[in-house]
């Protein structure tokens, strides 16, 4: 089983979500995170003093898939989240030992 983590632009979340559901991968977990990267963070002012907001608001998606669907999911996310501008984000793939469904106690492919 693979865990795919994608750190994407908040503004691209809707399109990634629908792209994923089109290929049938509509189960996942996400949260709002803050990112530093090559993209300059927002430049803001408060009471006359300028400063960097210090981060870019991003969405972190976590999705567990069977080994053979991983490539397709990765490609789908990459395409849907792509703008070509600095700040598009990263996809991180790792191997997990097991995923277990709390409801059914089944594991791996049958847990999904």
């Amino acid at each position, binding site marked *: 089983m693979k865990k795919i983590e994608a750190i994407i632009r908040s503004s691209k979340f809707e399109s990634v979500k629908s792209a994923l559901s089109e290929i049938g991968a509509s189960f996942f977990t996400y949260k709002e995170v803050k990112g530093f990267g090559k993209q300059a963070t927002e*430049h803001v002012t408060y009471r006359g003093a300028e400063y960097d907001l210090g981060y870019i608001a991003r969405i972190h998606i976590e999705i567990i898939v069977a080994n053979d669907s991983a490539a397709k999911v990765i490609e789908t996310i990459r395409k849907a989240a792509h703008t070509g501008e600095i700040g598009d984000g990263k996809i991180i793939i790792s191997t997990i030992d097991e995923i277990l469904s709390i409801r059914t106690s089944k594991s791996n492919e049958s847990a999904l």
Partner: protein
Amino acid sequence: MESATTISQELFTTNNLWILISTAFVFIMHLGFACVESGFVQKKNVINIIFKNTMIPAIGLLTYAIMGFNLMYPGADFAGGFFGFAGFGISTDEAGLTSAYNPGYTYWSDFIFQGMFAATCATIVSGAVAERIKLVPFFIFTIIFVMLIYPIIGMWHWGGGWLKVAGFHDFAGSSLVHSVGGWGALAGAIVLGPRIGKFVGNSVRPIPGHSIPLATIGVFLLWFGWYGFNGGSVLSADPALLSLVFVTTSLGAAAGAVTAFFTSYFMFKSYDVSMVLNGILGGLVGITAGADVITPMESIIIGGIAGILIPFSVVFFDKIKIDDPVGATSVHLVCGVWGTLATGIFGEGKSLVSQLIGVGAIGAFAFGTAFLIFYILKVTTGIRVTEDYEERGLDITEHEMEAYKI
């Protein structure tokens, strides 16, 4: 009201005091608008709407001092006319500070009460164009609308112009204030177009407001301020009329809440607090034109119908793909027109025909000029922020600030 020559200093003092207290009440409506509108927009556009709604009363008061007041009340020379102007600036002699000016108020009270009203119509517009309009063009629109359009229309009726002569009746501004703002809101929403993602194909994607408590505070403050808006429009503290106005205003708002509750429940099968809040505002707008000439029972009917109109109107504007984030057109335009017509139906000695003429003329002029201003701004300065700005929100992009650090 007794005539100016016979009124006692005591009554004059009380009358004038009430006008000034009403001014403070109307002032608090600006906070009400700021809260309603910021509560109903997304978190990322809160600073922007607050910025506008803070500047608007400031701009309104100053432009009203510069020329608005003298455009709206040009004096007897222009009676029955379409346009008049009594010169720039405000000033008065000693007599202007006595009951010789008016049995209800001094010249200064007159100016400040009317001036506090003036900015309201621009505030109404700001809600409808929220989350996508550029700041500077919006302020240009505001200045023209508040300094010229609103006073000219106001002059037609309250300034003794042609609508007054035509038998039109609009006690405290269902038409002169609210529908004028509502027409501006409609024009702005049309010229700007909807927010990205609001209408996808034939479906409507709701973009929920970021804080219902904030919107609720706003609605209650507006209701509170309305006691000054309608009550102050009595232009004296006359016990009989003033107490009637308090009753009709209160019952109109209450009826609007109740009918909006039932209507939206039957339409959407949910207890939708945003509809109830808009129902209250609709009831208040509806009652404003005739608060002085209807009975309490009629106020319940008028406010109640306004509350029914609200959910239908919201759905209607969604259907024709006009995107109004805070429901300003439904509340101020639809219920403003309804209230004006209702005065012709229920108000003793009032004529529905005169009311229709007024509604039509005001609508044509307010919508026409607002559309024109927005259109000219669109083709010159541009009025809409970039897609990127809209997605990231106006707070970070236009104001370089965030509303919350929670």
